[in-house]
């Protein structure tokens, strides 16, 4: 779902001069990531779509301020996350976030019926629901690293924090996630989340 950095550089440079086709190629490459990052913040598909679309448009008009040679992906994600926050704030949907995430998780997969699969579903649902209750920065740093496989440099850029603090922030987010999980939450019998 992502382009190589070198391709990005060329596309960004072309887009900066007003090449709409080049920018459209960037949108194609990053729309899934943008939508998913936004969804991590909003917990709502329509809001995530609006936020991602708005972010791409705003990013286009902000390309003049984009530092040449810098990675596009984390810069875009920062704009996406901000837009997603705006959407959520405007809609006052913060309290429903965890519920929605849980519902989406529950309805998103047609799980097989065996007991192990049911146990794994419950495990995932609990994890998703707990993630939904974390503060945005914690949920985003976990998602960037463990869902979207960002490098530390990209995480720092996306979160606009010093690179040297990324590891400790990630560790603190993990700790807060663990503290927020139910006391009896543990790995399923197979040692994985199964499914």
């Amino acid at each position, binding site marked *: 779902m992502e382009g190589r950095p070198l391709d990005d550089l060329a596309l960004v440079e072309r887009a900066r*001069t007003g090449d*709409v086709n080049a920018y459209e190629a960037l949108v*194609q490459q990053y*729309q899934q990531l943008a939508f998913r990052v936004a969804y991590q913040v909003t917990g709502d598909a329509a809001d995530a779509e609006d936020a991602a679309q708005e972010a791409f448009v705003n990013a*286009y008009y902000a390309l003049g301020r984009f530092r040449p040679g810098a990675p596009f992906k984390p810069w875009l994600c920062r704009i996406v996350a901000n837009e997603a926050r705006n959407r959520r704030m405007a809609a006052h949907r913060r309290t429903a976030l965890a519920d929605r995430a849980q519902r*989406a998780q529950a309805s998103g997969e047609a799980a097989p019926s065996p007991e192990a699969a049911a146990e794994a579903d419950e495990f995932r649902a609990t994890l998703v629901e707990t993630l939904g209750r974390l503060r945005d920065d914690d949920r985003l740093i*976990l998602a960037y690293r463990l869902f979207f496989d960002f490098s530390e440099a990209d995480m720092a850029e996306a979160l606009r924090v010093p690179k040297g603090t990324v590891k400790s922030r990630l560790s603190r987010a993990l700790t807060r996630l663990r503290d927020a999980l139910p006391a009896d939450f543990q790995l399923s019998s197979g040692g994985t989340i199964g499914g």
Partner: protein
Amino acid sequence: MAESRLTNTELERVLRELGTRYAYPPTPNLALAVRRRIVARPVVPVRRVALWRDPRRLALAAAVVLVLTGAAALINPTTRDAIAHFFHVRGVIVSRVSPLPSLSPVTPLNLGRRTTMADAQSAVSFTIGVPTGLGAPDAVYVDNEVPGGEVALAYTPRPGIPLVKQTGLGVLITEFRGDLIPGFLSKEVGPSTTLQETSVNGDPGWWIAGEPHLVFVQVGGTDQQVSLRMAANTLIWEHAGVTYRIESSLSRTDAFRIAAGLP
């Protein structure tokens, strides 16, 4: 059961697994919609900075955006919230939304710390404007978390200046470096609120009046703090990189009279 809590390493592993199975909704195709919008607003990105420095070009571009946005809304009746974003005054984004989300009319103002005018002046990177018609404010606040600083001048109600229930004040004037923080203020305006493009002391601005509108303030990147409240009649404009905002329940004429004593 409770004794075998997960370690960070185990938690990382299960989260990685979850990431591969996370039930995201299907990704919509954004490319077409984004293309339509940027083609409809054909500003070459690298020239955008220069555009802000030319009020006449800016006004022309804003007019084009208004026409195109209106046309797009007519063409596509399914256009959702925020069909119009107006980047007219640096530091401010105004959106027309329908319906406007409801919010308690009275929420904390979060103006920063109360201080003296002299201290406020030393804490911000611009010259604070005090409206000659109103004189010295009853209270001065400064917020240093805003790049360049933000100052708020508060005037209590008095004859000719009625109470604004959203602020508990008569007039509230805020000033900040809109050139440093383009998305600092976001305003959402419902269908019953008047939104007029205007010119204040020769600079482009907005007059927002009628039904209270939503305003939220952002600071910083992902560490931003966001405060959200309803606002009364507002005149907002930018001059030389500083964005000025007058909030009151006064008429447009009276608001302009106050603005005349500012840069």
